[in-house]
């Protein structure tokens, strides 16, 4: 029995791996898109808006298949990498919206003040806007992080041996679906819980002091 359980736990490393590739990939791409959307002028604004609309309008699993076949077909990536990057691309659209909201919440005044000191737009974004926007983005980003963690189970459809894939195999060989999927559920829950707690802590630590 413990052998079987070990088998699922090994999949946990792969789940974490997929998430650790998809999340940062989506963050960088999403941040780039959010900046382009907010500060890039009319044409780039349109392109970024279309990108977000398209990716958020289609179920992640469908995109995953499309992107997977494009990626693995064109540059011959392994299922793990193709799946993780595809998941990252899907997430980038959602992360873009989170960051865009945060950039707007920082407000134009901060940009004006930075430019008045003599900073270029790029300097203002780097030293003034982003440090504030990223702080504001942590709570909604925490939500997206747990969604990506859970959606990493989708790469099971591409044959990546992560938690769900292994749980399914166990369920078939042991004829104990409840135990197999139950174990998977518990692992997912613990991971999501840990991620949310960790980011709550980060949010608390980076909060700016006020009067009281």
């Amino acid at each position, binding site marked *: 029995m413990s052998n079987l359980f070990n088998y699922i736990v090994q999949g946990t490393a792969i789940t974490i791996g997929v998430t650790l590739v998809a999340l940062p990939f989506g963050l960088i791409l999403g941040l780039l898109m959010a900046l382009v959307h907010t500060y890039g002028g009319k044409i780039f604004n349109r392109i970024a808006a279309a990108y977000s609309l398209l990716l958020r309008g289609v179920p992640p699993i469908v995109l995953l298949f499309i992107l997977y076949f494009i990626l693995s077909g064109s540059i011959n990536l392994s299922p793990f990498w193709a799946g993780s990057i595809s998941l990252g691309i899907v997430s980038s659209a959602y992360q873009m919206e989170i960051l865009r909201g945060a950039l707007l919440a920082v407000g134009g005044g901060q940009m004006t003040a930075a*430019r*008045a*000191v*003599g*900073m270029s737009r790029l300097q203002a974004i780097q030293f*003034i806007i982003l440090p504030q926007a990223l702080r504001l983005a942590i709570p909604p980003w925490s939500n997206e992080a747990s969604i990506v963690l859970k959606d990493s189970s989708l790469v099971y459809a591409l044959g990546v041996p992560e938690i769900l894939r292994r749980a399914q195999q166990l369920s078939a060989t042991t004829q104990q679906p409840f135990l197999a999927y139950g174990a998977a559920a518990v692992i997912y829950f613990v991971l999501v819980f840990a991620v949310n707690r960790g980011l709550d802590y980060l949010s608390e630590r980076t909060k700016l*002091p006020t009067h009281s």
Partner: protein
Amino acid sequence: MTHPILEARNLTKIYGQNVIFKDITLEVKEGETIVIIGPSGTGKSTLLRCINLLTPNDGGQVFLDGKEITARGYDQDEVRQHIGMVFQNFLLFNHLTAFDNVMIGLTKVRKMAKDRAREKAMEELNRVGLADRADHYPGQLSGGQQQRVAIARALAMDPRVMLFDEPTSALDPELIGEVLGVMEKLARDRMTMLVVTHEMGFAREVADRIVFMEKGSIVEEGSPDDLFYHPKYERTREFLWKITELYGKKEKGKAAAP
């Protein structure tokens, strides 16, 4: 003393069909304090923003130390270092302490060495009487203190001229004095200043010249005494009287009666 530091020539700003101001010509000489007054919506704030190139103009020129900064291809970021600006709503960088607010322009824009920048930042905070609040974040400071830090932040760049855009309009009445005090001290030290304000007491006591703007044009300009006691236009007299009564009861008796 007579050398003009800042000069606007026929400066014009139009938003769509709206003429914000038209053909504004203004000269600010070294060490001068000029106060711009006028009803709201007459383009005073936009004028300041056009002068330091935060807002593009729709005609006319701006000269700083005799060089046309509105010329094509002129490095606008570089120009803004030399024109300090203080905003109505302070606009301190919220994620930085008072000290870092003053220092960031020195290290990132002027590329000053850290040690020298620290020294200078502390000097500037001292100048506005806030050395003891150096490690406070904007959220921990009163409005008056925030505005003084904002003044220190602008001063740190050693600007040729300081622009003030209604620096006390967002402040509780009991906090206005500390900000005006700092500005008065600057004027006494012969800092060149262009101030948009409704503080008539300040205008009268500190300004070398007062410019009265209305509906996007300069109606009249002159020394405080000329404008308060011998205005050329009825409209100037009317506005000054009204605003003096509104903002400084104690001044009422001294202002020219309508």
